[in-house]
């Protein structure tokens, strides 16, 4: 599978994501600067975490209006898989590729710790490396991960299997509604999540629970 990592100024987990994709697939992803004219022909587009444009205005708001997002939207419409992690999730929401909003954590503080995630829908391209209902460990590191949407949207997400990951065992770190940690679009080829699976992929990280997300994805098309 060919993948590309999009880099906006202020992102800082691009290197972590590139390392994870490289270590798991054996091939380095294409690294695409947000102003590059071309978005290469890939099967997976990843927007990593960080603080694009310093989180100024609203997290992800400025990057979401970058011209490259139009190209990503077109690819997503064509069925290419798009993964947004942390700030990448915020950007996907701000760009309208995913519904809802990510508000400031309920504690009003940045939080970096390990949480538990329940794989709520294992029947997607992103999650098929896991078992339905499996509880995994995963770190979070964010200030604005408190997912919210109106009740109609929540009902639709829940009813349509669009909630991919849920904080489990009382570990919701940000107050998100229904303990939502990651959601899919209607077509289920776009996933956004706050936790950082790329930071739990090898024994040095103290666990490998994040690995299956990438290995599952990368094996599909290969």
């Amino acid at each position, binding site marked *: 599978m060919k993948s590309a990592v999009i880099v906006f*100024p*202020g992102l*800082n*987990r691009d*290197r*972590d994501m590139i*390392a*994870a994709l490289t270590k798991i697939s054996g091939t380095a992803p294409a690294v695409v*600067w947000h*102003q590059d004219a071309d978005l290469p022909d890939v099967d997976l587009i990843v927007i990593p975490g*960080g*603080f694009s*444009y*310093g*989180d*100024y205005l609203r997290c992800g708001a400025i990057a979401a209006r970058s011209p490259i997002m139009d190209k990503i939207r077109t690819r997503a419409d064509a069925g290419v898989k798009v993964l947004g992690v942390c700030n990448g999730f915020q950007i996907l929401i701000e760009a309208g590729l995913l519904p809802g909003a990510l508000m400031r954590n309920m504690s009003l*503080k*940045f*939080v*970096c*710790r390990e949480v538990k995630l329940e794989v709520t829908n294992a029947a997607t391209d992103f999650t098929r490396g896991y078992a339905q209902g499996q509880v995994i460990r995963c*770190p979070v*590191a964010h*200030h604005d991960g408190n997912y919210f949407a109106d009740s109609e949207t929540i009902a639709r997400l829940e009813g349509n299997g669009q909630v991919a990951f849920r904080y489990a065992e009382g570990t919701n770190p940000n107050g998100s509604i229904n303990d939502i940690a990651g959601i899919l679009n209607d077509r289920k080829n776009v996933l956004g999540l706050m936790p*950082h699976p*790329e*930071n739990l992929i090898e024994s*040095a*990280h103290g666990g490998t629970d994040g690995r299956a997300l990438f290995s599952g994805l990368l094996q599909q098309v290969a």
Partner: protein
Amino acid sequence: MTLPNDIVITPQLVADHGLKPDEYQKILDLIGRTPTYTELGIFSAMWNEHCSYKSSKKWLKTLPTTGPRVIQGPGENAGVVDIGDGQAVVFKMESHNHPSFIEPYQGAGTGMGGILRDVFTMGARPVAAMNALRFGAPDHEKTRHLVSGVVAGIGGYANAFGVPTVGGEVEFDARYNGNILVNAFAAGLVDTDKIFLSEAKGVGLPVVYLGAKTGRDGVGGATMASAEFGDDIDEKRPTVQVGDPFTEKRLLEACLELMATGAVIAIQDMGAAGLTCSAVEMGAKGDLGIELNLDMVPVRETAMTPYEMMLSESQERMLMVLHPEKEAEARAVFVKWELDFATVGKTTDDLRFRVLWHGDEVANLPIKDLGDEAPEYDRPWVESKKSSMLAENDVPQMDVADALLALMGGHQIGSRRWVYEQYDTLIQGNSLQRPGGDAGVIRVDGHPTKALAFTSDVNPRYCEADPYEGGKQAVAEAWRNLTATGADPLAATDNLNFGNPERPEIMGQLVGAIKGIGEACIALDFPIVSGNVSLYNETNGKGILPTPTIGGVGLLPDWSQMARIAFAAEGQVILLVGSPANRGSHLAQSIYMRDLFDRKDGPPPPVDLAHERRTGDFVRKLIRLGIATAVHDLSDGGLAVGLAEMAIASGIGATVTDITTADPIPQFFGEDQGRYLVTINLDPQGEEITALWDEAKSLRIHAPWIGSTGGTDLVLGDARAIPVAALKAAHEGWFPTYMAGE
């Protein structure tokens, strides 16, 4: 020579610039005329304590700063130490005390920003950060506000910049009520053949300004940081800089890209005293003059005067000397990252520091003298009074279990989770040990086995009681913490925080601490390669506790052989390596005495440096041989707290039976130095452990078997069993409860 000068230089104006009458006379003698207002500002910036080290220089020169691995000692933006394979670690610790007290979020954030810049200015990508924080008494009205602001400020900057915070310290003491300490540490990795320095080379080359625009923030900041606080403190808020980690992150990437093009001859970040300090330093080091044209400086405010531009401490700015033929290539990098790039001057051969503005020359000073001729004082000092030992029978009694629970749930030992969960501790994906252990450890990115360990240590109580022993102890403790992970201690950085050096007793503390630090560094082969001095940490004449913070760096050849503090399994033998014959005896200056009985008398525990080294080397060997399964050095709270921390980290209990018949209090809570708790996976009756003891004995190290791991309780001698869960609840409870105002 006459320069236009609208502002009359009065004695009051000179005093307002922090310059003493004799220092002003020195200026007059040097330049042979009255300085312009801008020149007065430049002298004030260069000659204040913060930039010139005028009170401490004489003593700093006595510290050991070299070693087989040291590539760059003090004098550059940061120290550089060889870690093999063509790579080096670049690190430094620096204070941002005064600004953080005035405006905690921005003060602490820009402190972090400044130290990160020091590291990447040398060409290194920052890979780890720490911070050593000291606040006033928990019940002081300002403390909560300062804690929450400082922690959020550090997190806000370091998290956005993208460096993991892997360690640090947080302490509370009433002596910091009016003057908190924020000491920030950063480390980076660099290829040894790609280290960049600040020394300009070549005449007529462009001096280029990079990064953020110049504003009025921080004008006079370094001078402010060199003065004591009075009651007018809030009026000083405008001297605090405002940070922008987004710009800093772009500046990092742009600088590293620019350095890779080969365009950079010299580089200096604009930190304290901004444009002035950076330009003078680059020129003076290279034996060159510098001419600056302020009309070319990117500004974000209108009608800035040359004085303001020269003294602004706006953040996220760099000054470089570039190869002229590469200027276009260099400019393209900065355009890509949407940062300012402006040629603001050139190097000259006349050794003058010349500043032009609107066609006038507003400063024309001898560049070398600005640094070299800075006043240097041999300030009078008196040796700190030594206190006498506590009487043998002077042991206030308390139930051992009650005392341990009180300490675990107290402000000194209580878990710092509330703090470090606000820091990104795992970004970059190399964090092997995050805060909460003896030292933070990260993998060396790209190397299959190597890792770096980081720790920050000082015990201000000990330093107050005896600055010399306290200085020694701070170094030994840092060395010990690195050793406890299995690392070879490489080198250290020192951040010396003291009160007003014009008072002989404060100067005596500084001198005593430096002597102790120097002696310990020599004995442990642990050179000081960078550092910072922060004096005048006083409010209304009351000084802080003397606080010489030591940031230590160690190298693990193979992180698969790293030790952690958590008990690894049940049923393992616990050794107290480095134990005195009686397990522990020194209670004076312990937290048992201070926090439970409000006793602050007596001397701190002495450090036997030869024993320290033998013991540490032995422990490291046990780790590398795979015999040690968990290791924790003993410090605050002694044996009882050390055992409790190991139990909490693992959820496994322990039973300690080998306690002599004497009073258990000094054995469990004494803070005797040079001790490690080591669990081993050997049969306590077997031959291997006998061999271990024989070896320890030959090294004159006592390593008694004091108990075993197992169960869910911590059982200390005859004291009642304490469930590990209760210890954990106490340990985790203090900080969140305190910050919630409960």
